[in-house]
């Protein structure tokens, strides 16, 4: 049993303590925007915020969290898809298949919260999520756009 604060709501979740946060979010809370990609914290598709920090939810058990920690998923990033990153993502048509994009956006949002005007090098160093379709350059451009900088293509 775990008690978690997800997207501002405190929920009791009946799972084994060693259940990864990802699977509690997907299967118990029913929020499927957070994706399973690898299960070993490699790909970042499962990225959520824990007190504002980008966290790979596939590799941390629910027992590591309590209700005082604010967990935010892609569904809770903004009430209506209006986060500057979401707007930039739409404006630049970033996604292809889209499967990695929730994690990509959550990683980018945590980056911008900590570093509102990231350089290209900051972005390339901090965003380590895997995209197999190959949206990296548009991801980078969208982060720059959301940060109010110029669009970058490299």
């Amino acid at each position, binding site marked *: 049993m775990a008690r978690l604060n997800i997207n501002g709501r405190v929920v009791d979740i009946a*799972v*084994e303590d060693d*259940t*990864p946060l990802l*699977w509690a979010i*997907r*299967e*118990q809370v*029913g*929020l*499927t*925007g*957070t*994706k*399973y*990609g*690898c*299960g*070993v914290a*490699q*790909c970042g*598709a499962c990225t959520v915020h824990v007190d504002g920090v980008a966290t790979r939810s596939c590799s941390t058990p629910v027992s590591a969290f309590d209700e005082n920690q604010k967990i935010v*998923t*892609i*569904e809770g*990033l*903004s009430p209506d*898809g209006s986060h500057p990153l*979401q707007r930039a*993502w*739409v404006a630049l*048509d*970033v*996604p*292809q*298949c*889209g*499967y*990695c*994009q*929730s994690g990509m*956006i959550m990683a980018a949002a945590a980056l911008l919260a900590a570093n509102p005007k990231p350089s290209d090098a900051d972005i*390339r*160093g901090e*965003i*380590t*999520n*895997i*995209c*197999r*379709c*190959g*949206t*990296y*350059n*548009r*991801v*980078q451009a969208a982060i720059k756009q959301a940060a109010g900088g110029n669009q970058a*293509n*490299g």
Partner: protein
Amino acid sequence: MNQIASLNRRGFLQVSAALGAFTLGIRVPEAGAQGVAPQGAAQGATSPEVNAWVVVKPDDSIIIRIARSEMGQGTLTGLAQLVAEELNADWSKVSTEYPTPGQNLARNRAWGNMSTGGSRGIRESHEVVRKGGAAARMMLVEAAARGWGVPVTECRAANSTITHTPSGRTTTYGKVAEAAARLTPPTDIPLRDPKDWTIAGKPLPRLDTVDKTNGKQVYGADLTLPGMLNAAIRDCPVFGGKVASFDAAKVAGMPGVKKVVPVGETAVAVVADTWWRAKTALDALPITWDNGPNAQVSSASIAEVLKAGLEAPEAAIGNRAGDAKAAIAGAAKRVEATYGYPFQNHATMEPMNATALWTPERCEVWTPTQNGEAALAAASEAAGLPPNKCEVYKIHLGGGFGRRGAVHDWVRQAVDIAKQMPGTPVKLLWSREEDMIHGRYHPITQCKLTGALDAQGNLTGLAMRISGQSIVAGIFPQNIRDGRDPVVFQGLSPGGEEGAFGYAIPNILIDHAMRNPHVPPGFWRGVNLNQNAVYVECFMDELAHAAGKDPLEFRRALLKNSPKHLAVLNAVAERGGWGQPAPEGRARGLAQIMGFGSYVAACAEVSVSPAGDLTIHKITAATDPGHAVNPQQIAAQVEGSFVYGLSAALHGECTVAEGRIEQENFDTYSVMRMAEMPAVEAILMPSGGFWGGVGEPTIAVAAPAVLNAIFAATGKRVRQLPLKHADLRRA
């Protein structure tokens, strides 16, 4: 887009009928709001369709039916643009939906081929979908003319509105759609000249972006049905092996576990209330494997077999002119090199999955698939029911790249499991590890090339022996004729519209000694063009160097009869700065090829540090696909192709030990991340007159352009991929 046409009224009613009064557990707004009219207009359950491709609702909203699968490549939007173009539709009112494979079967394949691969989504269906849009427009206009009692020639349509020109009267598509649906479809359907396009050919935003930015897009892995259980599976890690025994009692009492089931002879699945519990129990399940006849096969033993094929007397010929052997024997200078290309996994971000519901009377499957009809055939076989008692609902794909097209092994498994739980929907989701070790791998090959240069450094002969795996032999063996797999020679054909070898070489022999290891091959984005481009384009660079000629000039001379090949090469050379000094420490490399009906070229700019660290700074890429339906999405495909192609070039390799694939996750199967990504400048130069694909061809030029640039920077030829094994340190 209703990405889940599968969860429409039909699917909902069937699930409900099977399970009783459940509500649909899908977490998507408006799920079930847009159903594909199962039998067309006559059914009347939704707005009437004007024809198979177009539904117009009374409020003037338009639903365009899309037969091909959207997996990120943008075909959904491009095909809709082509229909809307001929329909003279108001683009702002357009949405899309998938007809199901069962509906296609029931309507005598009204939507044609649903297969989505080979970069064929648009180039193979542009005519039929444009005719669908045009026919619908003609019927709508005729309906309006009849309503007004005026000649149809006095009416015209624009932006979903029909105007009677002499009187100025207007009506809208939504008002006449029902009448139009009752008319006899036209047979003479002229199509617009692409130069007059206003919707097609434009860089319109995709129709499916917003839900991918807020978590609402539903993928197969996200699917929930009422009463659904979840399954995790383990197939024998050694290809060709099977299950000897398993001890279900050991995990029967674990949380959530419902059943442990054999899946065919080779796999075991645990069915539980949640997937995580199913996987946890599967990890604890004692399984003994019978590893079968391949348990001693290794990468080294496979390499030996391929190496022998390089010298084998028997080989299937792909391209022959003149007498290559004689030219080589009489050459002033002879150049020889052997290259190798490994197994690679597709590694779609979303692992394989399918949800199946089986009863003795009917089987339904919800799955991300590149080929709904092939998925239906697989479901039918596994279910033991005829296709008309089965249905497949296509769910949005979290990547495809060829893995989800020709072989539907996961669908068969899901149905096999569901069959052992009659009346209960079961979602089978592969773990990443299962996905990695049970892929359908990019085929492994080696290639020996021998070139003949005359005293002036002209290429007078080329022999190219490919030894290795045939995808067709592995997947469609009935298509092998006289030991020849034509797909092996992608980009190497003497001519044709698919992938003509552009170089004019008087004496040439390209052949293939088929050597098929036990590791199952698959169509992997770019397919055989990928390694063929490495072999030819790197060797062209070697030949140019041996001839003492500039690699661009050397190619230009050989491409004099191939103006489209030459045009893309020239474009990247010019824009990439070829012939001008590169920035300090950087060097450039070129590659060109024709594949999937399009002409592509790349100029890569790299640097290599003294310690051997490679940086790919930028790539200039040119594409001539004939007609360009959505330029910004073509640019996205070109950018993405470099990620896929460079991932393969830099990292991609699956090795074999004791008969099984060694790489189980992204920690050992590395792929490119953002830090390694070069800037990409995509030059789109559609020359018109033909239709080429764009999802794959550019992948092929990624690796050779970079490898040639590495040679220019370091003097080192890397002939065995991936690059991670190469020592690029300065000697």
